[in-house]
């Protein structure tokens, strides 16, 4: 029989969203007990890698209205305006709270928090801590969470299944990585904060743990995923590794140049207008791809392909060291380039998933007892394209709100038959035990993963077209058969990472399927979804969210209206 633990709220994920939610629960109800389940120690979560900053109105020359409109416009009018309104109002409070919890923000002369310019934002509203905001935010939250004894951490526990009975989610089944045993972690409500799934693609800024687990968990229980076709390519990743060079480099005044040494965003029309390097990410990524296509990419022999240059030399050593020290460290270590003296090679790499578990403004999913927040959720703040530095704030704002609502709701749910939930976890434990060292066919995990990456790079890249997207859908279906033919070799129970990789790969396949399905069903170009055969936005037919459901027979596609408000859709140009 599996071990059973009981808490009021179960939070899956110890990144920015998960930690914020956990603190929100115990602050709303100091007697509540929270299980914080994470497949890695919370400070290893990928929030740690965020560099640039977090957005909230702070300056006198800024307003909530402006932040709101920038976000709406950035989303290509696919963001829900009620959500955006709430977001911009809460953002300054949440970041102030973070400051009070000790986050070492960079400061102005007068001791107030300093802000910097970011892509698609009309004024300086991105709060930063040199170029390591995610690291400082995560550590500040994690350390603050230690203050509360009723936040019970279950570190290195891998959630493999949501426990759902009678249409209500009552906990999760999690594999204790250390012992290889399954646990039933029961709670009146569950909040998924498992981050994005960048590992679906080959070149990504995302770390190894970003495998879209929460999305897949919800999807497999019949909860729809929303707007999955919208994935953000960050214009400036290092070729090869995909390691991110933050947008703050451009916020501080860096240039993008092509092989002819030309600042192409100012000399050619890519729709970013006078914003130049500070245009939104989708447009700049496309501009770089077009430069490369036009033969103005910088070529090197070997696997890296063509790229553009990010030039920071004119900023000088002092600015680089005081504002962008991590960028210098990363460029030196991973690209052998010192940005003080040489331009940094960069290419668009996959960065962020705008889509995710379909939730309402309270973070509630379409299944009783289930909530989601952070990158794994789609509360429709980001629409078709996220503005850089909005997502960390999103983790705080909606992490807190999901936490508050989850604990409030957990008081008036009906009791679910515990034995049924435990039985499910037990069955799940059996399934995993059978998987250990299972011999099936001649496939390997890495082989299937590489094919998956290739399919998605080809079908859902910066530029897409109907044929390639449709091919991705069929290829993915075929790949499932290969997944079933994977043979495993590790028979140990203790810290069996092969089993984890196997389950993560399944999640990646599920997520990929929803991305490709969403993509073929959107015959227009909007935000990050750039269809070459439908180059224009089509508000008449496609001003709606996409939903993808998993059903017995396969995937089912559906749509949902966008919540508009005071801003009517207009042509998006800068």
């Amino acid at each position, binding site marked *: 029989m599996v071990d059973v633990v009981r808490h009021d709220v179960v939070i899956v994920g110890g990144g920015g969203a998960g930690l914020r939610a956990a603190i929100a629960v115990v602050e709303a109800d100091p007697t509540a007990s929270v299980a914080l389940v994470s497949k890695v120690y919370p400070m290893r979560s990928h929030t740690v890698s965020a560099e640039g900053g977090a957005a909230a109105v702070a300056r006198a020359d800024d307003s909530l209205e402006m932040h709101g409109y920038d976000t709406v416009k950035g989303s290509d009018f696919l963001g829900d305006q009620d959500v955006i309104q709430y977001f911009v109002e809460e953002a300054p409070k949440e970041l102030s709270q973070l400051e009070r919890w000790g986050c070492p923000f960079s400061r102005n002369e007068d001791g107030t928090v300093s802000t910097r310019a970011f892509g698609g934002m009309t004024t300086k509203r991105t709060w930063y801590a040199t170029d390591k905001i995610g690291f400082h935010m995560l550590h500040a939250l994690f350390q603050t969470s230690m203050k509360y004894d009723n936040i019970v951490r279950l570190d290195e526990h891998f959630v493999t299944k949501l426990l759902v009975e009678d249409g209500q989610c009552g906990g999760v089944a999690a594999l204790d990585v*250390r012992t290889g045993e399954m646990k039933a972690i029961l709670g009146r409500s569950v909040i998924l904060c498992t981050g994005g799934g960048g590992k679906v693609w080959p070149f990504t800024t995302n770390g190894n743990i970003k495998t879209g687990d929460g999305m897949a968990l919800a999807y497999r229980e019949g909860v729809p995923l929303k707007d999955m076709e919208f994935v953000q390519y960050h214009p400036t990743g290092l070729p090869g590794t995909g390691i991110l060079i933050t947008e703050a480099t451009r916020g501080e005044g860096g240039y993008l140049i092509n092989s002819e040494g030309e600042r192409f965003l100012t000399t050619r029309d890519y729709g970013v207008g006078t914003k130049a390097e500070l245009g939104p990410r989708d447009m700049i990524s496309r501009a770089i791809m077009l430069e490369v296509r036009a033969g103005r990419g910088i070529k090197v022999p070997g696997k890296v392909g063509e790229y553009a240059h990010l030039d920071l030399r004119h900023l000088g050593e002092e600015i680089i060291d005081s504002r962008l020290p991590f960028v210098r460290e990363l460029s030196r270590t991973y690209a052998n380039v010192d940005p003080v003296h040489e331009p940094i090679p960069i290419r668009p790499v996959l960065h962020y998933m705008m889509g995710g578990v379909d939730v309402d403004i309270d973070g509630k999913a379409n299944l009783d007892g289930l909530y989601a927040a952070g990158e794994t959720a789609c509360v429709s703040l980001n629409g078709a394209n996220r503005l850089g530095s909005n997502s960390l704030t999103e983790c705080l704002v909606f992490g807190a709100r999901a936490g508050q609502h989850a604990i409030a709701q957990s008081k008036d749910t009906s009791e679910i038959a515990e034995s049924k939930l435990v039985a499910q976890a037990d069955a799940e434990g059996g399934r995993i035990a059978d998987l250990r060292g299972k011999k099936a066919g001649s496939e390997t995990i890495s082989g299937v993963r590489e094919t998956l990456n290739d399919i998605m790079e080809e079908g859902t890249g910066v530029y897409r077209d109907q044929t390639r997207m449709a091919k991705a859908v069929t290829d993915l279906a075929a790949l499932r058969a290969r997944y079933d033919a994977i043979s495993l070799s590790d028979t140990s129970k*203790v810290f069996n990472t092969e089993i984890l990789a196997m389950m993560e790969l399944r999640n990646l396949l599920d997520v990929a399927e929803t991305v490709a399905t969403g993509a073929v069903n959107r015959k227009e170009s909007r935000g990050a979804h750039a269809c070459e055969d439908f180059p224009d936005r089509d508000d008449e037919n496609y001003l709606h969210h996409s939903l993808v459901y998993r059903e017995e027979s396969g995937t089912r596609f559906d749509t949902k209206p966008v919540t508009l408000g005071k801003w009517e859709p207009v042509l998006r140009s800068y």
Partner: protein
Amino acid sequence: MSELRPRLDAMRPSKPGSTRTADPRPPDQFPGKGNYFGYIAFGLGSSVMLLVSMNLLRSIWALMEGEAAFRALMDSFGHPLYVLFHTIAFAWLVWVALRFFSLFPKTQPFRMGPFQRPADGVLVGGLYAIFAGATVVVSAILAGAIF
């Protein structure tokens, strides 16, 4: 160097972990390799300091007992073994001093009152200068050149 093995409970959680673990190894290069060597030599250097101070105490004690005792002690310092010891001790202590100075700046707060901590190089340079100055002046005084 009898007990090189570390205590086997290094970094053990208060409750034993849920699965059996292998015992921790001591730091792989301790004590002879890499920077550890300098650390150990520095530590032993202080013991040299301790011996030298005890000799200094003997000298003052002899001074207190009178001229004959003092002379006898000074004469014994002329023994080749003593000279060897004093030469080694001198070299060792100079090295200890230099290492001590280079490790000193970062032990100080970044700000002292309204002042910013000087750059490490400046502090270390200053300490070297004081060291050289003190050694020269004290030697000169002892040798009767000044006082």
